[in-house]
């Protein structure tokens, strides 16, 4: 049986725990230094330490991104930082600047090196180069096709990490300076302003405006390789990566649980595996962004992009987090996240278990006062439920049959 790792993003310690609880085999995180996504909360060393402890207790791994492209002024503190990561038993670093490979050897720092997607690796010869340098794993570029992934694995036998879900860059990763030029923020040092999500006017050589009604846009739809999970497992991909260190716990929990379920279902019963459309619906409802398989099956064209704004709505499916279950009263104690009311049918899901629906017959606040509806975010509430649920299960709108 091919072992495959489900690798989830974690923007902070809370998300790390949720990702692991919901079935991630590994998480990738950024420290306060040397990491892209400068705008994310990111982890202090103490938090990384706690995250590693939590992960290892749950047989999961933690990879830390050290993936900025360094300038001469950026080296200070790097060696100490890497030694600290080794000391607290981080499982690997994800980096793109190659001098770190020699630095680890020179300083005798025992950290696995995973080559970041910022290196934009698309072919077997580049992979062979990195492999000879002792790179343990290559995160393939998001432009990789089925044939190229397959061929790279066959020809190199290196550990490959493949993006299976999340936002796409329009341009080659690590080679995009749009943010630098248009906002003076360095995309390769964590300042990416996501210019490829903006809307523009477009003009011809005579400076005649061509976009009368529809803005010129270059934003790609999100990636989802849900349909191809069995194929990717059989190819021998070592790690399935979900994008999104800045996403919510609901997003992470939903994506991780869906992909966990699909991977496990296939590995447990390959012959009888069937694609379940409900998994796709679950992913779509969570992100509210259209997905395609982008470069995997064919070269992306007109249908793989967004044209009118971002075509996404605020997600209000996430209704609450379960804090506890009162066995005596058979009540769920929850923290509210979005509006719901008495009479609604809601869906409860949790790590590695089937979701189920219940009808909300009453809602009580902390003072046992009955309410018609739950309208205040973070309010602690009680609702009845015959079936026992667990802390950290999640409640969402019922959208499946």
């Amino acid at each position, binding site marked *: 049986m091919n072992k495959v790792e489900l690798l989830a993003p974690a923007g902070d310690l809370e998300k790390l725990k949720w990702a692991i609880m919901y079935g991630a085999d590994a998480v990738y995180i950024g420290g306060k230094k040397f990491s892209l996504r*400068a*705008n994310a909360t*990111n982890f202090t060393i103490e938090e990384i330490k706690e995250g590693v402890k939590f992960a290892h207790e749950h047989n999961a791994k933690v990879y830390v991104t050290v993936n900025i*492209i*360094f*300038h*001469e*002024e*950026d080296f200070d503190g790097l060696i100490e930082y890497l030694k600290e990561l080794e000391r607290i038993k981080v499982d690997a670093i994800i980096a793109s*600047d*190659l*001098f770190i*490979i*020699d*630095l680890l050897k020179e300083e005798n720092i025992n950290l696995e090196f995973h080559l970041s997607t910022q*290196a*934009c*690796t*698309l*072919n*077997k*010869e*580049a992979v*062979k*180069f990195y492999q*000879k340098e002792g790179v343990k794993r290559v995160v393939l570029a998001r*432009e990789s*096709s089925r*044939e190229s992934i397959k*061929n790279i694995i066959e020809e190199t036998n290196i550990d490959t990490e493949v993006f299976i879900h999340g936002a796409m860059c329009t*341009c080659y990763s690590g*080679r*995009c*300076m*749009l943010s*630098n*030029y*248009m906002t*003076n*923020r*360095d995309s*390769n*040092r964590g*300042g990416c302003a996501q210019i490829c999500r903006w809307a523009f*006017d*477009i*003009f*011809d*050589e005579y*400076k005649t405006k*061509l*976009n009368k009604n529809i803005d*010129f*846009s*270059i934003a*790609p739809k999100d990636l989802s390789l849900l349909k191809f999970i069995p194929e990717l497992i059989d190819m021998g991909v070592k790690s399935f990566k979900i994008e999104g260190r800045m996403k919510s716990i609901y997003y992470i929990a939903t994506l991780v649980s869906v992909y966990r379920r699909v991977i496990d279902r296939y590995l447990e019963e390959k012959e009888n595996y069937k694609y379940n459309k409900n998994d796709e619906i679950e992913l779509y409802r969570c992100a509210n962004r259209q997905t395609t398989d982008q470069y995997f099956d064919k070269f992306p*064209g*007109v249908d793989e*992009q967004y*044209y009118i704004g971002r075509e996404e709505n605020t997600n209000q499916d996430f209704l609450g987090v379960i804090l506890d279950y009162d066995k005596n009263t058979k009540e769920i104690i929850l923290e509210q996240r979005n509006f719901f009311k008495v009479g609604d049918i809601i869906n409860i899901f949790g790590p590695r278990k089937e979701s189920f629906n219940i009808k909300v017959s009453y809602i009580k606040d902390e003072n046992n006062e009955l309410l018609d509806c739950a309208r205040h975010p973070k309010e602690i509430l009680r609702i009845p439920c015959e079936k026992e649920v667990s802390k950290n299960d999640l409640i969402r709108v019922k959208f499946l049959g």
Partner: protein
Amino acid sequence: MNNIIIPFPEIENFKFFMENEIDGFIMGIDGFSENFNYLVKEKNLKRICEILKEKNKKLYITLNKVCFNDKIESLRILLHKISKLHVNAVLFTDMAVLNIVNEDNLDINLIWDNTLVTNSKTINFLQKRGIEGFLCSFELTIDEYISIVKNTNCKGFIKLFGYSKMATSSRKLVSNYFEYAKIDKNPKRKYYFKDKKSKDDYIIVESDNTNFFSGKILNGLLEYKRLINENIDTTIILDDYLVPESSFYNVIEAFVALRNSPNDEDFAQKLKMVVDSNCYNNTYNGFLNKKTIFKVKNNE
């Protein structure tokens, strides 16, 4: 030694540049290179190399396209051909080139050309693996470039004139948009796009890939003066891509004139103005004297 190189021109302009004081050419190969007004076919390479050698001009071949896996074998064949031509060096962006040259023991000097070329440590790392030079990323300041040159034994290359490439997408972004918006135009090679907030213009060019360029032309003539005055051994690239041909001749003359009289401040200022005016004053200094920021908020 400060060398000035320019893109290899179309055949009809060949003679002019042969007699010019520029030191050599940077050449793009059809299928493996992009962002050149003129891409050379593989079959013409040998003849061109012979002519350049006769005229004692340097030749650098640039392979600046990302290489997809299905193109690897044709890349290998090309590199074997190039190895027999004894060009001065090959500028490469994809590590596949370095691996093939090393694996197949090819006689090719390599210059690393990438947006990742931003520090001396990785250049030194790659020097141990066979590169002999680097073309620095466009977002470096001139101070950073000088610092890198001083911290490596590799030959430094820097572009000091031309439109700055901002990014490349493998998608057909203009064609896709035209199809969606039902704009009845055949995508031509060059369009302008405008940021709705700043109203700044940029250039977008669709060919095999879609490339994004600055709306202004980099004029680093005064930075060239500084490099000469500070004895920074370097090769500068003057890039004519998308620049009117007639303007480019004058730009070359200005940079050559500066090299011949690098100590005269007034003269340098006048030459800068010549370059500016030949570009309709649509010039700028890029990041040569402007640092980019990367921490939007301090999350220490």
